[in-house]
């Protein structure tokens, strides 16, 4: 059955509905209905994702000609994104009930939601950029919700990275638009492929979207922001928002156009490195949300590998895209369930609850690790199929690396489970249905995913019963067990801990050192030198201060005679130009 829905108002409501409650929030009387409606603002988008099975584009007289629509790729993204926004929204209503800042949280949540849904629905460059920016900036309000000093620091770094991302994306968008001669997204990949500035555009795109996607070394904001945000917001950040960067790559990069082996290899190497790097740093974390954040870095790395495949081997485009679609959906749901589970585990009070919550977490963790029959296993099978398209020596290595990555993921999930395992000895909170219900839905979606699949995918799920998907999990589990045993031994107290934000901290430390060197060594030396060069050292120093000079210059420009003379000089110069040229 195919349904075509082409009324523009319908599509506008999908992105505009979240803004409505946001507008109602300041009005005291309408506040509680607005808060009640918050999660369901994503419902029209979910409806569109479920019902629209054809490519549709509608045009609206907004911005520079807004086009909204869906293609198969974005339909999948919209499906899991809208779903997760609803689940996390319902969860947030209980999680933050009674919180003084809930109204503000609602406002930012809705704005971010509008941005996230909008960028998926956008079919033109300008709208895409608008929604992307809206999402990035509005999420700042989610990150800093708690308001503590550490959270504010995380927020600052998040904001800096967002603005940095904008600085890369805006030129990329403009260059793309100029190359395409239109703002339509359909024309973009071909335009990028054919542009004379292809390397520049691709570089800008990889970095700009890479920051959002948490790509290797651009991920520094991610392990800071995800734990800082309230749990439902973390679920959104990790589940859907980092996928926006991935979607950006898929929509803008020339996949399936001419083969770009160098770019492809670069992406594959960066992806695989990130996959292991995330696990290694993640293992040293103790906070469950930090572990999950690093796991996201690792998982996004795996999806980047598929992107690399599509870039390097044009014929593998379809395969790689399906792999990414399946993988992204799987990861969004599983990561959502895991993040929400952290909050649920915190509220456990009885041992029965403990058992149920534990089982749920285990299920989600197993899915992420790729245990047979799970969504993870299906996703990994797709990924592996895609890698077969790469030329031979690489292909074998890649599939081995992928399996090793699965081992690593299992290990990290084990570490997570140990960190989060519900503890009834903690002061008991009340585990309200508002928390466990949405979480259960998420877990059920992860677990029962296979049954909702179209037939061709379901057959793949059966294929995952093979040994190749079984052994990594088994090995990983064994390793976890061994590690646990080692860890529990009285003599063993070796606990490496890399602080969240890893390379960023290294960078900051380096800057700090440089600063200290400058202050301790360079500045006195410079002063001594200048003092010798000029006896009136103070005067010289003032002269060298560019800023001061400029400001003094402005002051001088202000005296009337100088200003008038400048006008006169301009007149004369222009006159000479006119007479002589």
């Amino acid at each position: 059955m195919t349904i075509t829905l082409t009324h523009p108002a319908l599509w506008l409501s999908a992105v505009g509905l979240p803004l409505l409650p946001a507008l109602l929030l300041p009005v005291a009387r309408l506040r509680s209905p607005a808060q009640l409606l918050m999660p369901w603002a994503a419902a029209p988008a979910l409806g569109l994702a479920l019902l629209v099975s054809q490519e549709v584009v509608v045009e609206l007289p907004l911005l520079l000609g807004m086009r909204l629509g869906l293609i198969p790729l974005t339909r999948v993204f919209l499906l899991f994104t809208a779903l997760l926004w609803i689940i996390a929204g319902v969860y947030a209503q209980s999680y933050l009930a009674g919180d003084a800042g809930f109204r503000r949280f609602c406002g930012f949540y809705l704005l971010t939601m509008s941005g996230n849904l909008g960028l998926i629905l956008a079919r033109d460059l300008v709208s895409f950029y608008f929604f992307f920016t809206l999402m990035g900036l509005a999420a700042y309000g989610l990150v800093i919700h708690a308001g503590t000093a550490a959270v504010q620091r995380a927020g600052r770094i998040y904001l800096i990275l967002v603005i940095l991302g904008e600085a890369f994306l805006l030129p990329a968008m403009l260059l793309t638009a100029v190359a395409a001669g239109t703002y339509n997204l359909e024309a973009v990949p071909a335009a990028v492929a054919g542009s004379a500035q292809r390397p520049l555009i691709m570089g800008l795109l990889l970095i700009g979207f890479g920051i959002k996607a948490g790509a290797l070394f651009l991920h520094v904001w991610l392990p800071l922001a995800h734990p800082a945000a309230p749990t439902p917001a973390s679920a959104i950040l990790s589940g859907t928002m980092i996928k926006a960067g991935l979607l950006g790559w898929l929509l803008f990069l020339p996949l399936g156009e001419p083969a770009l082996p160098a770019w492809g290899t670069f992406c594959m190497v960066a992806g695989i490195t990130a996959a292991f790097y995330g696990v290694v740093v993640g293992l040293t974390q103790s906070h469950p949300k930090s572990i999950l954040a690093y796991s996201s870095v690792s998982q996004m790395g795996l999806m980047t590998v598929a992107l690399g495949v599509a870039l390097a081997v044009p014929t593998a485009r379809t395969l790689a895209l399906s792999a990414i679609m399946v993988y992204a959906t799987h990861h969004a749901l599983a990561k959502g369930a895991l993040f929400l589970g952290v909050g649920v585990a915190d509220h456990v009070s009885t041992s029965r609850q403990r058992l149920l919550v534990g089982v749920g977490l285990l299920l989600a963790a197993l899915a992420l690790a790729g245990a047979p029959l799970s969504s993870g296993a299906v996703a990994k099978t797709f990924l592996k199929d895609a890698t077969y398209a790469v030329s031979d020596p690489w292909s074998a290595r890649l599939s081995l690396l992928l399996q090793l990555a699965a081992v690593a993921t299992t290990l990290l999930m084990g570490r997570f489970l140990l960190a989060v395992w519900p503890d009834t000895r903690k002061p008991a909170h009340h585990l309200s249905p508002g928390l466990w219900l949405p979480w259960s839905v998420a877990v059920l979606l992860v677990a029962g995913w296979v049954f909702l699949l179209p037939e061709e995918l379901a057959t793949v799920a059966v294929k995952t019963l093979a040994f190749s998907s079984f052994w990594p999990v088994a090995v990983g589990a064994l390793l976890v067990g061994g590690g646990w045993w080692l860890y529990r031994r009285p003599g063993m107290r070796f606990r490496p801990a890399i602080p969240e934000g890893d390379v960023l901290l290294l960078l900051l430390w380096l800057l700090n050192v440089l600063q200290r060197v400058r202050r301790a060594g360079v500045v006195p030396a410079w002063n001594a030198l200048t003092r010798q060069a000029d006896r009136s050292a103070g005067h010289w120093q003032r002269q060298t201060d560019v800023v001061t000079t400029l400001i003094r210059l402005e002051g001088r420009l202000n005296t009337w005679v100088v200003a008038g003379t400048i006008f006169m000089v301009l007149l004369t110069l222009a006159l000479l130009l006119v007479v002589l040229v």
Partner: protein
Amino acid sequence: MRGRANITQLWTRVILVVCSVVFGLGLVWTALALPQEATGLARVVKPRMPESGVTNPVTAVLLNFRGYDTLLEIGVLLLAIIAVWSLRLAPTRTALERFMAETPVLAYLVRLLVPVMLLVAGYLTWIGSSRAGGAFQGGAVVAGAGVLLLLAAMVPLPRRRRLLRSLLVMGFGLFLAVAGGMLLLGNNLLEYPPERAYILILAIETLLTVSIGLTLALLFLGVIPEVAAIQQRREDNV
């Protein structure tokens, strides 16, 4: 620092002089390159004179063909008086003013001159439709009479605002009313019916003469009359 400032000033001055000379020469060259034959609108104005309602071409241009410019220009004059008043300068009695006030000869002369000046002003305004003259010339003479009266302190400053302000705004008001009123007749803005043009222009010019004269005299005074009057009375009482 002082020395540096002087050097800056010196250089600025040198540059300014050099630029002024070069610029002046450039302008002279430009002036010489201007066309020698008449290119103006005289030929366009002449055939339409009969429709203008007046016989003096300058008045026809000012009040009819380019009446819109003149309307705005009266606006500038009204704006000037409002702007000067908005500065709210303190009223001062200068030494000259006191001297004048105490000299009976001047007072006599002013008594003699002012009526004659007003007569001249009226004549200038009336003759403007056919020969050199008009509201501006007439208004300037009225203003001269007003300045003389002010200097001789022979008119008490009005304490009530309404009358004075009405006189000031009256010329502009009539002009504007005529301009807009033409729309009611189905004409364009300021489009006089040719048969009424003369009388309308004369009416506008007459009121303008009073308004312009008064405005110029009050611009000379520079302070808000009613405020000054209150102050003056206060001083006199002391």
